[in-house]
Each structure stands twice: as C-alpha cells, then as structure tokens.
C-alpha cells in the first residue's frame, strides 16, 4: 500500500502501445496522476490531450475523482476541461509528500480509505459531471438575475425617495 502522492508519468510518444501502458481504469484510483506531456511537440500535446479526454469520456471514467489526473503541458488551459498546469511545481501542494515508510497506524488509516476510493470509483462519472454542470449553470443564472433585481430595486428606491422629497 502506498501513499496517495503524485504518480509522475512522462508521455514520450503518441503511439497506441505507449498509451495503453498508462491509460487504464484504475490509474487514478489510489493516487493522483501527473501526465507530463512536455516531451511531446507542441501540436502533438494537443492531440494527446484529445486522446486522453476521449479515453475518459468513452469509458465513463472520471479524471476528477477519487484522485485527479493532471496534465502538465505547454498548451493553453482553455483547450481542455481536465485539470492542467504549465509545470510540475504548479501542481497542488497537497499531494506533494515525501514517499517514506509508514507506521502501523498510518497504514491502518490508509486501509480504511480504500473503501471510500472504491466507492468513488464506482460513481457514474457522466451523471455526476452533467449534474454538476447543470447545478452550476442554474445557480449562476440565479446570481445574475439577483444582481439585475437589486439594480432595478435601487433605481426604484431612488425614484420613490425623489418623489417624496418633491
């Protein structure tokens, strides 16, 4: 049993055999993964991002839970929905830990997390993603409408006040 710290994978080519080596259903089940695409050419990085996204969407796996899959690349973040960074140093510090031997209590606690990881792994990724997007979109609209409502309310209050003052 190992600590849930980054598993760094250097992607060196676009070949299918190489992809099969690291793209598997359990790749982010026990630890976060950082896929380093920097060794690929700039255009190849975009192509690789498409292939990785395709793998997750067609198999209905999530790249967000139980542990996130990060892309380390030179391309702009807007080309993908996946979490990404320009360099390894920019990755969230939470999972940057020393990989040393654990004591019994720590191993025991890690063992308890296994069940949670399995449960999250079994969640329907597409349903979760759709529900979250929908929830977010509705609440963004509520926020925008409330801003508009407050704007009209302030105008009306000022008009009423002006009328009273004559």
């Amino acid at each position, binding site marked *: 049993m190992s600590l849930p710290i980054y598993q760094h994978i250097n992607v060196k080519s676009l070949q299918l055999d190489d992809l099969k080596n690291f793209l598997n259903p359990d790749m982010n089940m026990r630890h976060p993964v950082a896929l380093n695409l920097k060794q690929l050419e700039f255009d190849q990085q975009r192509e690789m991002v498409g292939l990785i996204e395709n793998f997750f969407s067609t198999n209905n796996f999530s790249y967000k*839970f139980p542990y996130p899959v990060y892309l380390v690349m030179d391309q702009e973040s807007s080309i993908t929905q996946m979490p990404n960074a320009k360099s390894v140093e920019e990755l969230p510090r*939470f999972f940057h830990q020393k990989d040393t031997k654990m004591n019994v*209590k720590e191993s025991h606690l890690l063992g308890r*997390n296994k069940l949670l990881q399995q449960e999250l792994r079994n969640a329907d990724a597409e349903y979760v993603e759709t529900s979250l997007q929908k929830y977010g979109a509705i609440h963004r609209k*509520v926020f925008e409408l409330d801003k508009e409502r407050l704007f009209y309310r302030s105008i009306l209050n000022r008009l009423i006040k002006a009328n009273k003052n004559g």
Partner: protein
Amino acid sequence: MDKKKLLKGSPEEDLKGFEEFIDHHSSDPNFLPRGNAPKKEVGFEHFTFITNDSTRLMKLKDLLMDNLPFASQHEQGENLIKAQQEEIALLKKNIFEICNKPESPYRTSMQEIFDSFFGPTQN
C-alpha cells in the same frame, strides 16, 4: 497507585544491599548506560496528510452519493429563477409607471432636452 508512590519515594531503600556492587563498577563507563540509548523514532509524518485525504474523500463521497442526487431530485433553481423574473418584471413596471407620469423628473428632463434642440427659438 500506592505502590508507585512507594517506589518513587524511596530510591535509597531500593538500592539497599547493592551499594558495594555499584561502587565497584562505577568506574566502568558501560555500567548501567541509562539514557544513552538512541530513542526509537515514532514519527507521524503522514498521519495528518492521510487524515486530510480521508476527509477529502469523505466529503467527495457525500457530494456524489447524497447531495448531488438530492439536489437533482429537488431542484429549487427553476422556481427561484421564475420568482426572480416575476419580481424583475414588476420592478420594471413600477419604474416605468413612475417615469411615465407627466410631472416626473424623467419626463421633465426629456422635455428640456427636446426643447433645447427642437423647441421654438427664443428671441
């Protein structure tokens, strides 16, 4: 508890009968090397990290398994949007009614602007 107190309170009594033996070996540096042994390291370096990760996983599980299905089944957003749109329409209507009165500041200002451009010339 009483036994412990007795032992702590009388160290000289414990050593009774061993004085000569201790005196004889006191010059030996390896004799009773108490406190010199290196302490066994019992670090909990990763304990906090794993605990935090456990909390993170638990919150994720609650979100995905409980909160999200509940929110989907009992979505309040549409109702809120409808209520807000109705209130906005009402506010707009009220604003328009106030502004549309002949003596309203809006009408007066507009009249002044129009008169300044298109009104009869003053001699």
